[in-house]
């Protein structure tokens, strides 16, 4: 399929072909009618003319015979007369005197004369008929001499005239064919010209449906111009709406980013104040009443949450604005994840393993951004410890997800699966776990965490060219699988 073919839905019945066919049919019918009428008018006129000519000639011949023949003609007189007729030469003659028959040639046969003509002639009138002779059709005119006794038939061959007629017919036929071909060409051209704007419009509409809102149609002064102008107006309106919408979204995002940005300094101050307050309380436990100490601890915990929320909002707004940067370097996942678990103090809760994931002695190495991978894994482990239960397993392995081109090198992925030992996630919540601020159980709204952790984890995974998916593990706990481009060495 061509590029254009894929772009444009092809009309099943081509309008252009139909217009061409109709045009050709009209031209052919018109040409045929013209040719037929021309042919028949010519034919009739020629026939009339030929008969008139034959009759006039015959009358003259009969007059000649009357004046040439003596009162009692002899055989030689008849022969002389026949010779006189033959001077003209373009007809054959048959004379019947009593039982004597004189002919100018073998073509002239008495047998060719119909009884009607014979009767008419016997009646003393001049008659004619068309007959078929051996060398083609002919007109035969018969008459009697005024002196009586002699009946003469003149055979006028019509082959030449008919040949001419046939030539005319052929010329008309050829002219008709040429006309039909020209008509088809003209029809095709006309259809193309007429349907060109339709084609352009449908092409433009198809491009627009694929999201190209910049497309415009040339505006002419005919009916298609009106269509094109409407189309262009529609495109402009659509584009304006889209731009508005996008600008609105961008404004909204920027607002969130700005708000969060502005929060950083006061939150820094709050965090510092809380930690100083806590340190003072720990240094002098009896300095203030227990309820005040308790409140101070609550304030300090809430400030920590606020800080987390501001951090997460900052990160997600940067990811949304596509302003997130990556620092790509080679990372050996096994020691990296083991150290990560140790640094975060999770050594007793989280186990890092490469067992059962298709990795033997190979080293899973990937070129990626360590800090972002850390962010993803930390969010997943915190989520597992918060909503699931320890122990949590981190399995590093080769990608095992069904993949059409899994053996192609560019599709090589490593996977890191984080599985907890909790009750798992109910199927109705699975599609929403990556939604921002989604709470599986609204009544447990006080569960710690910003509600952005998993959304951030997935955005980060995608930023790194990978993905993050969730499922319920075989053992019942929730299982998150991070895919990263990379391979085992």
């Amino acid at each position, binding site marked *: 399929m061509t590029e254009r073919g894929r772009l444009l839905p092809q009309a099943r019945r081509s309008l252009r072909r139909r217009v061409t066919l109709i045009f050709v049919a009209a031209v052919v019918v018109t040409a045929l009618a013209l040719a037929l009428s021309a042919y028949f008018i010519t034919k009739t006129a020629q026939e009339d003319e030929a008969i008139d000519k034959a009759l006039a000639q015959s009358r003259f011949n009969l007059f000649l015979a009357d004046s040439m023949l003596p009162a009692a003609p002899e055989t030689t007189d008849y022969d002389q007369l026949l010779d006189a007729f033959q001077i003209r030469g373009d007809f054959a003659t048959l004379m019947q005197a009593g039982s004597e028959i004189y002919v100018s040639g073998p073509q002239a046969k008495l047998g060719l004369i119909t009884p009607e003509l014979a009767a008419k002639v016997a009646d003393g009138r001049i008659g004619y008929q068309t007959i078929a002779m051996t060398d083609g059709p002919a007109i035969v005119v018969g008459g009697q001499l005024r002196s009586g006794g002699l009946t003469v038939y003149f055979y006028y061959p019509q082959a030449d005239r008919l040949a001419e007629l046939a030539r005319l017919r052929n010329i008309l036929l050829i002219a008709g064919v040429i006309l039909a071909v020209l008509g088809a060409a003209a029809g095709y051209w006309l259809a193309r010209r007429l349907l060109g704007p339709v084609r352009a419009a449908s092409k433009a509409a198809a491009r627009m449906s694929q999201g190209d809102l910049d497309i415009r149609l040339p505006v002419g002064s005919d009916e298609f111009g009106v269509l094109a102008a409407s189309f262009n107006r529609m495109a402009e309106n659509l584009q304006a709406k889209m731009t508005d919408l996008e600008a609105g979204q961008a404004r909204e995002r920027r607002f969130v980013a700005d708000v969060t940005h502005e929060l*950083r300094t006061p939150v820094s*101050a709050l965090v510092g104040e809380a930690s100083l307050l806590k340190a003072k309380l720990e240094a002098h436990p009896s300095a203030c009443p227990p309820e005040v100490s308790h409140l101070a601890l609550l304030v300090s915990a809430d400030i920590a949450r606020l800080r987390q929320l501001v951090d997460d909002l900052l990160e997600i707004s*940067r990811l949304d604005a596509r302003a997130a*940067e990556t620092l790509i370097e080679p990372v050996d996942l096994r020691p990296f994840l083991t150290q990560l678990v140790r640094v975060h103090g999770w050594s007793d809760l989280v186990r890092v393993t490469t067992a059962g994931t298709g990795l033997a002695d190979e080293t899973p190495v990937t070129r990626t951004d360590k800090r972002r991978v850390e962010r993803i894994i930390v969010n997943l482990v915190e989520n597992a410890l918060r909503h699931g239960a320890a122990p949590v397993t981190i399995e590093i392995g080769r990608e095992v997800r069904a993949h059409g081109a899994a053996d192609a090198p560019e599709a090589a992925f490593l996977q890191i699966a984080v599985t907890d030992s909790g009750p798992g996630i109910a199927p109705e919540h699975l599609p929403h776990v990556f939604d921002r601020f989604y709470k599986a159980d609204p009544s447990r709204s006080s569960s710690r965490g910003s509600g952005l952790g998993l959304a951030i984890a997935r955005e980060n995974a995608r930023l790194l060219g990978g993905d993050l998916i969730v499922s319920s593990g075989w053992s019942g706990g929730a299982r998150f699988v991070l895919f990263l481009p990379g391979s085992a060495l």
Partner: protein
Amino acid sequence: MDELLLIVEDDPSLREVIRLGLEGEGFRAVAAEDGPSALMAFVSQRPDLVLLDVMLPGLDGFAVCRELRKISLVPIIMLTARSSTEDVVTGLESGADDYVTKPFELPELVARVRSVLRRAAVRTAGGAEAAPAAPPPLSLGPLTIDPSAYTVRRGCEEIPLTVTEFRLLYELARHTGQVLSRDQLLELVWGYSYLGDSRLVDVHVQRLRAKIEEDPAHPFLVLTVRGVGYRAGHRESP
């Protein structure tokens, strides 16, 4: 431990809490709320370290940093917008030794301050105190690196380096011919044991080259080893 710190921050609450937090850790602190007063305070007080907010009214933190670098090699820690590359790299290129992103926690800030001051400790304490344990001078190409006096000389000309630049050069020279990864350098020079920012290393290497290499675009003292890190050593000079 009674080093004097200059805190430059326009937000009064944050300025106050940083001052309280650092004083609680045994430092002395003075504060300034904008660029010009920071420069004046620096000249009059001669602090051992400057904590510099990036977003200041009028003269911003980068400009203050560049002004300070014209007159001093004092350690500078920037308080930046969260790890966005322009802020971090601009800050480091302006001459900062390290940075802390907002919102931060006091222990994090104190750890950064301590780490930078440790690098500077030998210099501020003077050669005498450090003398017993002082390692011998090293040489790298035309350079003589004296860790006891914190000086680098090319012939008899002294090259002024900040403590961080000096420390970076010293660690590279101490491991001449050996490739040090960015993570190793972050740990040796900045004291990050886990996930430091490798941009710190890259920008400081650039600044170091600008000071010690004859042609910084074609270095032959501090060499990049692609995909791994850096190595001090002689490339055959052209």
